[in-house]
């Protein structure tokens, strides 16, 4: 099939979420992808709307431009010069900041774009260096900040609230229904999405149609998250930072593992949502986070976010309930209410107040997750943290306080 101008291919790679995707296969050395996008996209998307004569004008112009861009060196030089001149004298009379950045970009010599395969198996051509990033998922935004690339983050979603500075970035709408116009207006070199936390495949498809490079992360385990950070750092040119971030995460994980070496995993119910009761399945990063925290979910299902029957929970009697509320201040009244709620009040964990409340950072596959996991482990296995100034947990193995 063909999308817009230029050859496009369908790649039959299968992955868990998005098995195949079209890529505009622009020859990487004849023209930069950025140039290509600016040249062909407006016409290829709009041309069919012009009937008759004006359509022909557009068609002629389009072929002219495309031929030139594939043509000999001096022609491309002339075109680039024309572009430069055009960018210096904006058509509308007023100089908008975005046009200026466009001009700046044209002045510098662009590096060859990089072809990468993202975490859902899509092939993405990413211009180098990446200067303008839009993130559509809160966890990816956190990763960008952790990688120290926040100055290049020009826009993020309504849900991106951490770190607080992320709230000040230009908002492009909710992660689920981002506003494509707003994304286009930000002129991103790269749009980052998270395939399994709130973003839709249709968004990536739409951005593909608009020739905006879109890279999807897709983490199912903590190892995946670490790999995401490394790959992302690689793509945006923050390799060193990524190494530092993941090394510190790994150090925390190792420390935690040593501490918990002799504890038995606690059987917990992770409450994602209470009415109706939604918990986690075995293939989610949260299940992996629980394992790291010395716990295992009483719910074992291949569904990622299963609706759980309260009877089943009463039958299984979790040792701990785990909540990760947005507003931890309301948790006390909430727990009091649970003691009088049918079903919940029959749980020994509720009666004996064995409830772990952790920061909602645990819900995001991002660097902060590890801290939330440590916080959880501290509540589930206080004895392992009791007198261990440095990670010698093995010396006072006493199992779990039950």
């Amino acid at each position, binding site marked *: *099939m*063909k*999308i*817009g101008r230029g050859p496009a291919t*369908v790649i039959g790679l299968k992955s868990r979420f*998005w*098995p*195949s*995707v*079209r890529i505009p296969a622009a020859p990487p050395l004849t023209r930069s992808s950025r140039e290509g996008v600016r*040249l062909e*996209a*407006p*016409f*290829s*998307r*709009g041309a*069919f*709307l012009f009937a008759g004569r*004006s359509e022909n*004008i557009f068609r002629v*112009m389009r072929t002219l*431009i495309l031929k030139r861009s594939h043509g000999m060196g001096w022609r491309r030089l002339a075109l680039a010069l024309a572009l430069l001149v*055009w960018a210096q004298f*904006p*058509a*509308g*009379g*007023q100089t908008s900041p*975005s*046009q200026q950045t*466009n001009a700046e970009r044209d002045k510098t010599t662009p590096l060859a774009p990089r072809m990468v395969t993202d975490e859902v198996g899509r092939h993405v051509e990413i211009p180098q260096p990446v200067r303008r990033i839009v993130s559509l998922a809160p966890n990816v935004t956190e990763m960008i900040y952790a990688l120290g690339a926040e100055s290049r983050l020009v826009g993020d979603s309504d849900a991106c609230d951490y770190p607080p500075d992320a709230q000040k970035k230009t908002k*492009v*709408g*909710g992660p*689920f*229904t*981002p*506003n*494509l*116009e*707003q994304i*286009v*207006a930000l*002129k991103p070199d790269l749009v980052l999405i998270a395939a*399994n936390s*709130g973003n*839709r*495949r*249709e968004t990536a*498809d*739409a951005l593909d*149609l*608009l020739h905006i490079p879109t890279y999807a992360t897709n983490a199912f385990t903590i190892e995946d998250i670490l790999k995401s950070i490394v790959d992302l750092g690689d793509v945006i040119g923050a390799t060193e930072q990524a190494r530092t971030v993941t090394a510190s995460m790994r150090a925390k994980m190792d420390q935690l593992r040593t501490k918990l070496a002799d504890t038995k995993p606690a059987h917990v119910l992770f409450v994602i949502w209470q009415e109706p009761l939604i918990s986690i*399945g075995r293939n989610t990063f949260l299940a992996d986070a629980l394992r790291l925290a010395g716990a295992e979910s009483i719910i074992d299902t*291949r*569904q*990622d*976010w299963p*609706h759980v029957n309260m009877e089943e929970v009463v039958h299984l009697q979790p040792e701990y309930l785990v909540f990760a509320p947005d507003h931890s201040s309301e948790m006390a009244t909430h727990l009091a209410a649970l003691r009088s709620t049918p079903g919940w009040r029959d749980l020994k964990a509720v009666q004996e107040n064995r409830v772990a409340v952790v920061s909602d950072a645990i819900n995001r596959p991002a660097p902060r997750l590890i801290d939330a996991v440590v916080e959880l482990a501290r509540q589930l296995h206080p004895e392992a943290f009791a007198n261990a100034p440095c990670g010698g947990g093995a010396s006072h193995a006493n199992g779990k306080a039950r």
Partner: protein
Amino acid sequence: MRTLTLNRLLWICGALLAVLFVVVVLALKVGAVPISMTDLAWNLVRVIVGRDTQLSSEYGLIIFGLRLPRIVLGIFVGAALSVSGAGFQALLRNPLADPYVLGVSSGGSFGAILALIFLPYMPLVTPLAAFVAATATVAMVFFLGRRQGQLDNTTLLLAGVITNSFFSAVIIFLMTTLKGGEDRGMLYWLMGDLSTPLAASVRWMFGLGLIIGIGAIYTTAADLNLITMGEREAMHLGVDVTRVKLVVYVSASLLTGLAVSVSGAIGFVGLLVPHAMRLLFGSDYRVLIPTSAIGGAIAVVVADTLARKVVAPTELPVGAVLAIFGAPFFLYLLRRRLA
């Protein structure tokens, strides 16, 4: 009822087209990113006379890459749903009939969800599956709706309603047993969504199907006028009722299937617009079909513009906007008519 002259028809359609044009220009202007229309016109002129080699990216990508395709999609979907609504109302002789009454939308959604489960995320497969399933549902309802070899309105309506409930239930069953992740896109799709740009090939196919469907229904317009008086009477007046019903049934289903396959189930427009056009221009199907097509386009484009703008940059479901603003307007027309 005033006699219909070609002049009157052209006047009415011309006026509506003028309204549609104004609406489209306004819709082009309104959006999350502010855009100056004069600058756009100036930019266009410069490109055409060759001063500039290309449109600036705001105008190029946002106007021609995003807004215009979306507006065109809105026009297509609005026209398709309104005309099929008008068709089904005549066919079933039931003012409550709308394009989804015969189970087309839930059938289409069922096809889409099956595609998502078995062929996850192949481009174009989901709309195609939705269209095939919608058409298959319609064929099934057609056979269920026959009594003694004749298409019986009440049986057809009941068969459609039951099929609708059945597929809705199956969809809910599938969505709760899905592994996760997949159902979220589906959910939005069920509410109706115009925000995803279509590949050009799909747009051409849609346009072609739209013209064929509306054209076929329009050829039966004079016969539909008689059929609304009663099938027996129409038959006595020389109308081939069976053929007309088949043509309208197939074309209206095709139109609905097309709309469902690209935009999900956008409700209300197929019910509201034909009635509004009846109240404004009378119930002559020769006027009603073209005015419904244009009126539906206007309604959907206006609703979608509001959906884009009201809480920008977040978007509202276009179906909800249609119902919120359409219902009071419809009631106003209804009361004015009774007064």
